[in-house]
C-alpha cells in the first residue's frame, strides 16, 4: 500500500511540474502583451515600456519561471496586473465559490444519477426504466448553458423564483447563498447526472447478475438488503471513478455556469484573466487547478482502494 501511494505521489508531482511549465510557456505564446492589454485605449509607447518593466516581462523566460516557482513555493503567486490585487487573495475569494458550486452540482449529479440508475437497473423493462433512460439521454444531449439561459428566462426573470444572478457568501447569509446557487448547481449537475446514471445502471446490472448476489438472494436476504447492501455498494466503485473523471468537466462547466449566473468564481476569473493577459492570475489558477485535479485523483485512487482492496494488489497498471 505504501509503495503504491508513493508511486502515485511521484507521478502526481511530475504531472504538476509539467502543467506549470506548459502553462507558463503557453500564456507567453499568446499574441498581445499584458502591458498592452492593461493599458487598453489609454496607451503610449513610453508608459507601455514602463509597465513591461514593472511586470518583469523584460527578464528571460528562465528568470521569469524561476521567480514564479520560488514565489509559489513561498505561497506568493504575485499580483494581478490589471487590478493590483494579490493573486492568492483572488483565488481565496474565487475558489470557495467554485468549490461550493461544484459540490452542490455533484450532490445533484449523485442523488439524481444514482437514484435513476438504481431504478433503471432494478425496474428493468418497466416504465420507470424508460423514464430514467430518457432523462439520461436528454441530459447528455442538451448544452448546459442553454439550460441555464432557459432557467434564468423562465424561473428567475419570468416567475421570480430564484435570483437571476449574483452571489452572497455563505458566511454572510446562508439562506441567500443557497438560494443563489440552486439554479447554477442544477444546471451544472444535470449533465453529469446523466453520466453517473448510465454508469450506475450498468454497474448495478453487472452486480445483480453476479454469483454472490444470487447467493445472498438464495439465502433469503430481502430485496432491499440485496440492492442496498450488496449490489449498490459494489457499484459505487464505478461511480467514484466516474465522479473523479468528471472533475475536468466540472471545472470547465463551472466556467460557463459562472459566466451565465454571474458568480464570482474561479472559472470566470480564469477566462477573464486569459482575455486580459493577466499572466500572474492565469499561472496561479492553473497551478491551483492542476494541483486540485491531481489531489482529487489521488484521493479517488485511495478511496477506490478502500472500497475495493483488490486494487492495491493490482498496483500501477489498472
Amino acid at each position, binding site marked *: 500500500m505504501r509503495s503504491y501511494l508513493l508511486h502515485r505521489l511521484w507521478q502526481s508531482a511530475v504531472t504538476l511540474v509539467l502543467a506549470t511549465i506548459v502553462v507558463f510557456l503557453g500564456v507567453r505564446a499568446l499574441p498581445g502583451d499584458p502591458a498592452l492589454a492593461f493599458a487598453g485605449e489609454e496607451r503610449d509607447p513610453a508608459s507601455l515600456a514602463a509597465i513591461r518593466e514593472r511586470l518583469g516581462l523584460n527578464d528571460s523566460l528562465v528568470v521569469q519561471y524561476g521567480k514564479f516557482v520560488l514565489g509559489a513555493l513561498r505561497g506568493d503567486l504575485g499580483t494581478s496586473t490589471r487590478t493590483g490585487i494579490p493573486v492568492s487573495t483572488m483565488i481565496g475569494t474565487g475558489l470557495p465559490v467554485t468549490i461550493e458550486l461544484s459540490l452542490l452540482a455533484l450532490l445533484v449529479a449523485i442523488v439524481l444519477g444514482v437514484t435513476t440508475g438504481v431504478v433503471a437497473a432494478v425496474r428493468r423493462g418497466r416504465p420507470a426504466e424508460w423514464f430514467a433512460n430518457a432523462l439520461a439521454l436528454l441530459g*447528455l444531449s442538451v*448544452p448546459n448553458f442553454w439550460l441555464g439561459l*432557459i432557467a434564468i428566462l423562465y424561473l428567475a426573470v419570468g416567475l421570480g423564483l430564484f435570483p437571476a444572478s449574483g452571489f452572497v457568501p455563505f458566511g454572510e447569509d446562508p439562506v441567500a447563498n443557497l438560494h443563489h446557487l440552486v439554479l447554477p448547481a442544477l444546471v451544472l449537475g444535470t449533465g453529469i447526472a446523466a453520466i453517473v446514471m448510465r454508469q450506475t445502471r*450498468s454497474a448495478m446490472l453487472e452486480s445483480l447478475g453476479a454469483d454472490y448476489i444470487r447467493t445472498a438472494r438464495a439465502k433469503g436476504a430481502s430485496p432491499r438488503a440485496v440492492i442496498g447492501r450488496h449490489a449498490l455498494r459494489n457499484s459505487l466503485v464505478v461511480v467514484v471513478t466516474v465522479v473523479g473523471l468528471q472533475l475536468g468537466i466540472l471545472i470547465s462547466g463551472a466556467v460557463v455556469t459562472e459566466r451565465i449566473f454571474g458568480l464570482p468564481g474561479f472559472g470566470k476569473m*480564469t477566462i477573464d484573466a486569459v482575455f486580459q493577459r493577466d499572466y500572474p492570475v492565469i499561472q496561479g489558477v492553473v497551478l491551483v487547478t492542476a494541483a486540485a485535479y491531481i489531489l482529487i485523483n489521488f484521493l479517488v485512487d485511495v478511496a477506490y482502494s478502500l472500497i475495493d482492496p483488490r486494487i492495491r494488489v493490482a498496483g500501477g497498471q489498472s
Partner: protein
Amino acid sequence: MTATEIVTPPAPDPGATPPRRRAALRRLRRSPLGIAGFAVLAVAVLASVLAPVLAPYSPAQVHFDAPFQIPGTVGFALGTDDLGRDVLSRILFGLRASLEVGVLAVALALVVGVPLGLAAGYFRALDAVISRFTDLMLAFPFLLLAVGLAAIRGPSLGNAALALGISQIPGMIRVVRSETFRLKNLDFVAASLVDGASDVWVLGRHVLPNALSAVIVQATVAIPQAIIGESVLSFLGLGIQPPDPSLGTMLADAQQYAAQAPWTAVVPGLAIMLVALAFNLFGDALRDALDPRSSR
C-alpha cells in the same frame, strides 16, 4: 461540455470474422431506436449537405425591415433574428458547421488517440510516458486551451474543432489502452506471439480489429459531445465566426434577446438536442449490437 464517458468494453472477439460483424449489423437493423437515430442523422447530414439548395436565403442575408419575425411568417418559416436573417436558412447552414466540427474533432482524437492508446496498452515501457501525458491533458482545463488557441490563431471553426479534438484525445487513449491491455493478455494473442509474430503484426491483425468496436462506440459518444462543446465555445465567442452560423453561435446571439424573441434561442437549442440525441441513440444501439453481452 466534453464529458468522458467510460464505455463498457465489448466482449473479447478472438475471430473478428465477418459473420460476427454481419450479426451485429442484423441486430442493429432490428433496433428501432438505433434506426430512428440513424434516420435523424441521415436527414441532418443530407439537409446540411443540401443547405445551399434547400435554404430559402443566404444565411447572412439581412432584412433590416423584418427583424424578429415570429415563426410561421410568410417567407420565414422559422422566423427571423435581430438582423432579420432567416432562422431556417441559418439552421441549415449551422447544422452543417456543427456536424463538421463534431466529425473533425473526433477524427483528430482518433488519429492521435488510437495509436497512442495501442502503444500504451501494448508496450509497458511507453505506458508510463503516455499515461503521464493523458494525466497532464486531463489536469489542464480544456477551455483554457480553447481560449489560447483562439487567441493565437484567431477564433474559427477549424480551431474550435482542434481544441475539442485535443480535449477528446485523453478519453480515446484511455479506452483504446484498456482494450489493448485486456486483449494482449488473451490466449489467442499470446499464442500468436509465441508463434513468432511481430508486435506490429499482432497489433494490426489481432488487437486493433478487436478494439475497433470500443473505438466506434467511443466515437459515437464523442461526436455529440463535440457538437455540444462547439456550442459552448461559440457561446464564449471562440467558435465559428459570423456571418457564418453554427448552432452554437445562433444560441449565443439569441441570449441577448431571448425574452423578446424566444424562438431564436429555442430553435437552434432544439436542433442541437435532436442531433445529439440521435447520435446517442444510434451509439447506444450500436453498442448493444456490437456487444450482445451488455444488453442482458
